């Protein structure tokens, strides 16, 4: 019963979060002192040749239509929410007319999710294992070295590593490619090899920093738990160190880390975005960036809304995993 209440309250919270997030996306352009239609017109005129007055007026009509700026605010809002959440119709991309925004997102999203999920899982697993060992055997030299390494890695912005790796391994020692260019038909062996080759550096930029974070936080948690009575008693019971670490320490230390993982998905997504931009990796981050550069309003709104949806749902799923692991919440 307790689990059901937990499940319902979390679901409600996440629905509200998505709601607020998408509302934000709706309102922001309207809160700006500038008129998005005007800006769009200026940008279009700046990018291409100037248009005569009639064309400009026509353009303005079309843009206002597409932006959904016609009608009063409430109508706009309901129309937008209906489109964004239910039908997910964001219209055609302005810069890649007439390809639908959703189609472009559909192609890009798997790249981002693949990159993000792979790096996050690898970093989480490796980081937690290292942290667990470091916290359990606190005084060994290796533990202290790992801790210091994590302290240097953890606070850094993701672009620092992306740039450093590019400098080192794409320019100075050109092992890896600069921009992503995956060849071959999908899922042929050549394709997979190419995919891994191109994804290596982007993934590494994310993994290195994330691992630092998990190592550090896990070390704190695990060294705290090592002082708990049941661990001391487990030692008195004569259990082997390995058994204590994996059967007693790990299941308990993992719980706060699962919650932490859920909270971190937003940050990791932002990191994946910047890494994509720097490596020209064809994910949704790259889409957002390009759409902003080209003032492709439909795409901007579409990509950002989908990002919010994707991240919120991922966070939600991980959050729900928590009670599965903690019997104190699962059972009365």
């Amino acid at each position, binding site marked *: 019963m307790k689990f059901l209440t937990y499940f319902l309250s979390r679901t409600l*919270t*996440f629905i*509200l*979060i998505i709601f*607020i*997030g998408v509302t*934000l*996306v709706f309102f*922001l*352009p309207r809160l*700006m002192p*500038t008129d*998005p239609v005007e*800006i769009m017109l200026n940008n279009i005129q700046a990018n291409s040749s100037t248009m005569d007055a009639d064309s400009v007026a026509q353009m303005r009509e079309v843009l206002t239509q597409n932006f959904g700026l016609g009608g009063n605010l409430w109508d706009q809002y309901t129309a937008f929410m209906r489109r964004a959440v239910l039908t997910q119709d964001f219209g055609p991309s302005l810069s890649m007319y007439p390809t639908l925004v959703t189609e472009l997102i559909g192609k890009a999203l798997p790249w981002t999710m693949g990159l993000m999920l792979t790096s996050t899982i690898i970093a989480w697993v490796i980081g937690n294992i290292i942290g667990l060992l470091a916290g359990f055997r*606190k*005084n060994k030299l290796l533990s202290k070295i790992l801790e*210091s390494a994590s*302290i*240097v890695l*953890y*606070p*850094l*912005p*993701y*672009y*620092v590593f992306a*740039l*450093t790796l*590019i*400098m080192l391994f794409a*320019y100075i020692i050109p092992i890896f490619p600069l921009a992503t260019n995956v060849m071959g038909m999908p899922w042929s062996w050549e394709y997979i090899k190419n995919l891994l080759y191109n994804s290596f550096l982007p993934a590494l930029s994310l993994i290195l920093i994330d691992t630092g974070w998990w190592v550090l936080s896990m070390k704190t948690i695990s060294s705290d738990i090592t002082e708990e009575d049941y661990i001391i008693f487990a030692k008195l019971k004569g259990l082997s160190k390995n058994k204590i670490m994996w059967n007693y320490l790990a299941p308990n230390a993992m719980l706060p880390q699962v919650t932490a993982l859920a*909270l971190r*998905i*937003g*940050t990791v*997504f*932002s990191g994946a*975005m*910047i890494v994509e*931009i*720097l490596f020209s990796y064809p994910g949704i981050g790259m889409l*957002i*960036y390009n759409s*902003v550069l080209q*003032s492709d309003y439909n795409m*901007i709104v579409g*990509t*950002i809304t989908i*990002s*919010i949806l994707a*991240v*919120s749902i991922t*966070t939600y799923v991980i959050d729900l995993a928590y009670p599965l692991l903690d019997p104190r919440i699962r059972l009365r």
Partner: protein
Amino acid sequence: MKSFLKYSNLQLKIGLILLIIIFTIGFIFPLFRGSHADEWNSYPKYLKPGIEHIFGTNALGQDIFWLLAKSIRSSLIIGLIVAFFATIIGVFLGMLAGLQGGYVDRIISLVMDTFIVVPSLPILILIASLLKGQTSVLAMAAVLILFSWSWPARQVRSMALSLRERDFIDTACFSGESKLKILIKEFLPFILSWSAANFINTILSAIRMESTLAVIGMSNNSLATLGTMIYWALQYQAMLQGKWLWIGVPVIATIVIFGALFMTLSGAQKYNATKRGQLA
């Protein structure tokens, strides 16, 4: 001083030394030099490093070393301002939510969680694109503050929740003290000492956000910060041309600043723990 040396650890010492170096470069050195060294076309372009220009000059005619100094200063100042206001807002809202409970708590928590779950970078990019070209430092800072208050608020809220349950608060309540007095005398000391430690974290997060935006060109490009320095270097294909100093210097400086701040923070925490007798 003696007790400092006795209880301090390597982390704290290295962190402080690096911080002093950074501070000197960013704030003390420029006092001996005019502030125009970073204006465009002050010097001939692409000069090799030498005595006149320690790191050489870049494609915009700026002396890289003095550009670095200015960038460090700007980045740190932005970080400080954002962290300051974000912490105040965060602590206030966190305490309000934790102590009041009920609807106030639920609404604040919802907004808080939204800002944590929803990825900040896309929204920041959206805002930046809408303000295209018109991003003043103030607007930049305001936007960053908007996204920085949620973490401190969350922590303070959970602290307030747990403190609320503690016995000494009940004692104070029963002894008839007014709620405001309780707030100030009992809660504030806890929360302030935590905020002091967390302040550095917030500075780091603010600099991180600002520089990330700047690197992809979404910030105010004429403002000299570490992020914009990297941006211009990328724009002018510094890597392709082998101008390693131009792109390398700000990257390394960023690493050093972040490392120094964080090492000082965790070193200070260890220092406190050792002083209180909790051996590592």
